[in-house]
């Protein structure tokens, strides 16, 4: 499996560290909503098909990446910087001015 880092170009899987499912929404750190935290910490959608996930190019530029990869075929359809494409939703809300 080759992942094309937007900074370094195509690199071998062994340079990357998997950081897991990017479909989760981290609750606001101030939130005491147990169900939302349980959902974030334990529950997964476990997609068979295109899966949004985080990788870090830990053996290269160390950038955090958002990757869209097909879990049935290992085909990679999208790679972008996580800071641009993988924001947790509560941060998006903050950007929009809502608490």
């Amino acid at each position: 499996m080759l992942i094309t880092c937007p900074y370094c170009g195509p690199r071998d899987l062994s340079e990357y560290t998997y950081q897991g499912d990017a479909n989760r929404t981290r609750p606001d750190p101030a939130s005491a909503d147990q169900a939302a935290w349980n959902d974030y910490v334990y529950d997964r959608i476990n997609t068979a098909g295109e899966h949004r996930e985080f990788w870090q190019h830990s053996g290269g530029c160390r950038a955090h990446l958002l990757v869209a990869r097909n879990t049935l075929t290992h085909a990679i359809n999208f790679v972008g910087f996580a800071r641009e494409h993988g924001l947790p939703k509560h941060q998006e809300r903050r950007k929009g001015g809502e608490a």
Partner: protein
Amino acid sequence: MLEQGIKRVASLHWRSALVWVWQEIMAEYSAFALLRNALHGNRDWKPAWRKPDPKPSYDVIIIGGGGHGLSTAYYLAKEHGITNVAVLERGWLGQGNIGRNTTMIRSNYLLPENSHFYEHSVKLWENLSHDLNYNVMFSQRGVLNLAHTPAQLDDFARRGNSMRHCGIDAELMTPDEIKRFIPALDISVGGRFPVVGGLIQRRAGTARHDAVAWGYARGADRRGVDIIENCEVTGFLRDGDRIVGVTTTRGEIRAEKTAVAVAGNTGAVMKLAGIERLPIETHVLQAFVSEGLKPFMDSVVTFGAGHLYVTQSDKGGMVFGGDIDGYNTYAQRGNLPIVEEVMAEMVALFPGLARVRLLRSWGGLMDMSMDGTPIITTGPLPGMYLNCGWCYGGFKATPASGWCFAYTIAQDRPHKFNAAMTLDRFKRGFIIDEKGQGATPRLH
């Protein structure tokens, strides 16, 4: 087997012994049956299981014709008298993890919830060949965990003590004893991770995985269970909230109780029932077998500084594996980095194997739960029962998993051995986290 048989007969009253010998003679597979069939030109052997068409309805449907599904069907029939059962298998019997594992069996756990469950499994293994009248080649050759730091050895001693509290055998070994036990092992591990000791469970060992599937399948079939292959579940039938059967590629099948035991495909099957999220990720685990060698190692060994477990099969091949690849996948194949890592560990432990050729490698889909412990439970919907989260330890659990799942289905409540293995333990804060590592789908 013969030795076990003689011991058992010697321990019985003469009348019970006679009954037992008579049962052995009349068994479908026995020396007597070989002789009888030889005299009839071997024309009378029956297939190990029938190929029935699905009936419109059953008392219980089990989705998944793997080890756990088949053993569940067997124990439903044997222990609970529920024989109007169908096992639905998408492909052919034994194509999944029951035929893809590295065949190791052990009960060397720290936490009592796991210890009692897996020890029950080992006890079922000990009598499984007789119980099934099918030689599963259970070989109690021992499982030896190597420790490479004093801290790790302390941890092993603690785990060994915990095992012995639960009535499970455990023994610490010194490096000298280990060297005598397995002379081929480089106990300096290349000088980098020297072996400082080990923990062995001598009653642990291996079994022939295909025979387990075939033995359970025949045992269930002979008690009236329909094993239906090439029958993929495409949806669930509902009556309000309640699950009342399934739609399949071979038509609609109704059932009072629908049980799911589909390992790596749990997410996909549960989505058909509208359950979108579970504390499970599907990952790939690779396994390897080398060309056949003369017998040189009569135990299972695990490497504690990395992650490697290795045994020598009766055919002579080294059967071994390591970590999961580590990313979500439903492809039954892995990538090269983990292959290199496992080979490096193998050669570090056994330098003498450096020039041995690899025969095959393959991958299986692991239902990695978030605390490394399985889920055997009623629900999550009425009329439904769920068995999943085996991480990469499902094979050794095959008998106990089926035994407990059958109990749970028949009685509508868990047995004490699986009472803690609920789906809502994550919400309630009662995770069974063997390694104390917190929520991650990389535990086992």
